[in-house]
């Protein structure tokens, strides 16, 4: 009888969904557009748009910024879709403050990343466009001002990330540019020279089009004046030549204390810029084993995420790719190289998904970063591929080294099909469980609230003082029993999106971390001793824990 009861309980637990789409209840009803919903004549209609979790008003609650593109045949005046800023009201709902905040801009928006560019304690925004990118400075009164430096971002910007590559305490900016796109001279599927995919006429690109050039901007702002200087050439960013760059993520992959940059590239070799500590970078993706597939083939890289998934203290990488291919899980070898462990780790079962946004998210708070991927095809009108695809949640099996697809158990919100693109990870209800924000092509957002009652966690907000205020590039290391947990604050990553800066660590059954230390980027190593879980702690550089807030449960 006891055995039967156990089986019944296990079955019940396994079938209780633990991600619930709260978008409509939360008031996130707006449609985010990228080209025609039913037919894509040009590649610019296919990338979709990014999303961000950010706390723009410093009330301790994650707000949402969502980017929209447009349609090639335009909209009637006054009906154009605009980027949206939604303020978290703290009761599970959001209010649209876009107009009041001055960010309700129309145009062909693509991606977003955040960082405190002027170290005033307020998070600022960078929005990429097919057209001119926009840098917004947060005034601190609920509004933003356009401070885009002249000449910044006038191509087809996609992914971006703030980082302090020269460790001068000010956030610099890396922007990927996809295609040097010329609408007039690009063939259409219904034109005289269409492109084909699996014998069907489709939009053309990126192959055959002119790739873009990645840009690195050095922050030379002075009080009251925002100034960024293009150092791409001098810093060696241009050296690999033009590429179809999509997502940008930063990581200190060799743990030398200097941020490196990884760019997922579509249809060409991806790029890893190793920081040489002198203001320049060397592209080392091939030598490091993160450039190509396991077979040495170029892939259509889309989104990327970084975490120490195997608990060895070194950052590993995951990258999503086109259909008929697998994602890449690159395990850090701790010698400036990575080994691909996709198949061995259990990520080799699906090649029918076209992956975009990806994040390491410890949804069950067991201290092992799990993986969440959003998918969707680029061709809505072909017979050979499914345009709307489900998401995938992989549970990290910990010491087994294997990931297991738990999407079905996670619930309908994960199994729901859409042509998804952007993904942000963050705990918007401050309950100690990471939630997920997804942008869906020509649809409303999905806001997947994590309801799983499993495991304790601790959330750390790092605030730099001598180093950049956002804490970007700073690393927290925790010991929990024998387990070592590592997290780095980063801007950008996933796919043209921005996750929460706060570092959330699953503690499993532990009440807290036995030791916590923070290695500030370019600054001191700060040892904090034991810290209790179940709360959000602000750690201010040089001052230790400066505030604590218990989880809202």
């Amino acid at each position, binding site marked *: 009888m006891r055995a039967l009861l156990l089986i019944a309980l296990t079955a019940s637990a396994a079938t209780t969904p633990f991600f619930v789409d709260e978008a409509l209840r939360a008031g996130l009803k707006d449609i985010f557009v990228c080209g025609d919903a039913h037919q894509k004549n040009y590649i610019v209609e296919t990338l979709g748009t990014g999303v961000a979790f950010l706390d723009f008003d410093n009330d301790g609650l994650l707000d949402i910024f969502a980017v929209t593109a447009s349609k090639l045949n335009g909209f009637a005046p006054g009906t154009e879709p605009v980027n949206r800023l939604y303020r978290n009201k703290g009761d599970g709902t959001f209010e649209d403050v876009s107009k009041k905040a001055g960010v309700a801009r129309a145009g062909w928006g693509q991606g977003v990343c955040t960082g405190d560019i002027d170290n005033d304690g307020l998070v600022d925004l960078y929005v990429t466009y097919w057209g001119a990118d926009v840098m917004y400075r947060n005034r601190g009164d609920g509004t933003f001002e356009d401070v885009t430096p002249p000449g910044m971002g006038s191509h087809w910007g996609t992914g971006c990330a703030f980082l302090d590559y020269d460790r001068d305490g000010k956030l610099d900016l890396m922007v990927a540019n996809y295609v040097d796109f010329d609408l007039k001279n690009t063939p259409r599927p219904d034109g005289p020279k269409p492109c084909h995919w*699996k*014998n069907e006429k489709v939009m053309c690109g990126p192959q055959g089009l002119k790739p873009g050039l990645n840009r690195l901007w050095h922050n030379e702002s002075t009080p009251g004046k925002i100034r960024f200087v293009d150092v791409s050439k001098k810093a060696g960013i241009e050296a690999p030549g033009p590429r179809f760059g999509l997502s940008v993520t930063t990581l200190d992959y060799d743990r030398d204390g200097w941020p490196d940059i990884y760019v997922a590239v579509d249809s060409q070799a991806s790029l890893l810029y190793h920081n040489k500590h002198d203001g320049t970078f060397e592209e080392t993706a*091939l030598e490091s084993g993160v450039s190509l597939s396991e*077979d*040495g083939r170029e892939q259509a890289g889309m989104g990327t995420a970084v975490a120490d998934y195997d608990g060895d203290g070194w950052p590993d990488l995951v990258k999503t790719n086109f259909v*008929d291919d697998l994602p890449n899980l690159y395990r850090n070898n701790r010698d400036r*190289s990575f080994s691909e462990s996709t198949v*061995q780790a259990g990520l080799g079962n699906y090649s029918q998904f076209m992956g975009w946004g990806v994040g390491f998210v410890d949804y069950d708070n067991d201290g092992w970063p799990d993986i969440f991927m959003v998918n969707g095809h680029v061709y809505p009108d072909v017979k050979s591929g499914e345009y709307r695809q489900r998401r995938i949640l992989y549970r990290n099996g910990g010491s087994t080294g294997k990931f297991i697809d738990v999407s079905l158990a996670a619930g309908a919100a994960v199994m729901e099909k859409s042509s998804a693109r952007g993904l942000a990870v963050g705990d918007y209800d401050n309950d100690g469980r990471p939630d997920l924000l997804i942008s869906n092509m020509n649809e409303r957002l999905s806001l997947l609230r994590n309801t799983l009652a499993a495991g304790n966690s601790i959330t750390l907000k790092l605030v730099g003082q001598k180093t950049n205020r956002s804490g970007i590039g700073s690393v927290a290391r925790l010991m929990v029993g024998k387990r070592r947990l590592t997290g780095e604050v980063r801007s950008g990553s996933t796919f043209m999106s921005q996750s929460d800066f706060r570092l959330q660590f699953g503690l499993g059954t532990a009440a807290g971390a036995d030791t916590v230390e923070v290695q500030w980027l370019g600054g001191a190593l700060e040892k904090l001793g034991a810290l209790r879980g179940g709360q959000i702690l602000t750690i201010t550089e040089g001052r230790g824990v400066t505030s604590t807030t218990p989880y809202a449960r």
Partner: protein
Amino acid sequence: MSALLLALALAQAPNQAAVSDCSKAFADGFKEYQRKDLSQALIAFRAAVQCDPKLVDAHLAIADIYAERGNDGAALAALLQALRIEPKNVLALRAASNLYLKNALHNKALPLLETLVLAAPTSTDAHADLAAVYAASGNRKGAEKEFRRALELQADYFPALAGLGNLLARAGEDGVAMPLLHKAIRLQPKSYEGHFLLGSALNRLGQFEEARTELEEAAKIGGENEPQVFYQLARAWGGLGKAAERRAALSRFSELTRKEKEDTELQRKAAAWIDEARVLLQAGDLEQAASRLELAREAKPGDATLLFRLAGLNFDLQRYDVAREYVQAAISISPATWLYHYLLGLVERGANHLADSRTSLEMAIKLQPTEAPAFNALGEVLLEQGEHQAAIAAFEKAVKLAPGDATFQRNLASAKQ
């Protein structure tokens, strides 16, 4: 495709040829083929399909000769023509799918192979090829089924053993995969592919020393120009902690892929130059158009169409020597294309080489007896040679084929006077 196809096609030929009025042309082609004069054989086979467009064996023979000359496009066109007549022709299905696979056009090969396995269900290689295409397009289940079917038909079929072993190794089913790969190598120890696939699988398993041995063997016995062999070798060296060796393997990989990329890029550029030439031509700038085509030709020296276009442009610019060189090069690649002989006839006439012009125009007419401009041009040459009756006959033929053409009528009337 190989001469095997032609041999098989010709083995069937007498029956069809015997009941056809076009048997002589086909038989002539066969004779020329046996004499290894492929150009003459091609011309005769073309004449045979002119005579009877449904002569499948002649289309197959044409395809075979084109394939042997490296003109895959023309070979495929002939094979597809054969398949339009006989959609389940096993030889045509096999040859066309092989050509598509050779050119990495898996999606085009797929429907042909699916038809082929139905038309020839006991063909081991058809099942194995279909499996490989399924594997390449991500259809793992289909690939595994077809590889297994191939192995049911022939348990020691190397491509199926290696293919299935590779497929399963990639899926992490090492327990089943490794014996298959080892068996494949035992069967064909001198095939680099087997060693390469085993080495790659061993890399995945972290057995780097064994992987290195296999991959070095692969590089020695035929894989020396295969970039992937060196990429895997670099992985093995990396796993063994040998940084210098790893760098050397990656360097070789980069060198080989760079060349591949440069070739691809050059082809892309060539296509762009051809497009530019078209625009310039439409604008009447023949000189610039010719210079763009010349650039494209350097990238695609074996492209008969491009050579023909260049010849045409130089003919229009009255550079007859240059035009002759180009059109003769086109003819050497595609000797049964009437248009090339026709242009050569016009070039020779422009250069006042009337005898040569006449020979070329007569060849064009032989290959395509329905083209009025060729008869008209021949008439003009004959007239210049003083052969009035023959010229009148040629003009009459031109007028008959294109009764509405005023120039042909005027030429005929003038010749009669």
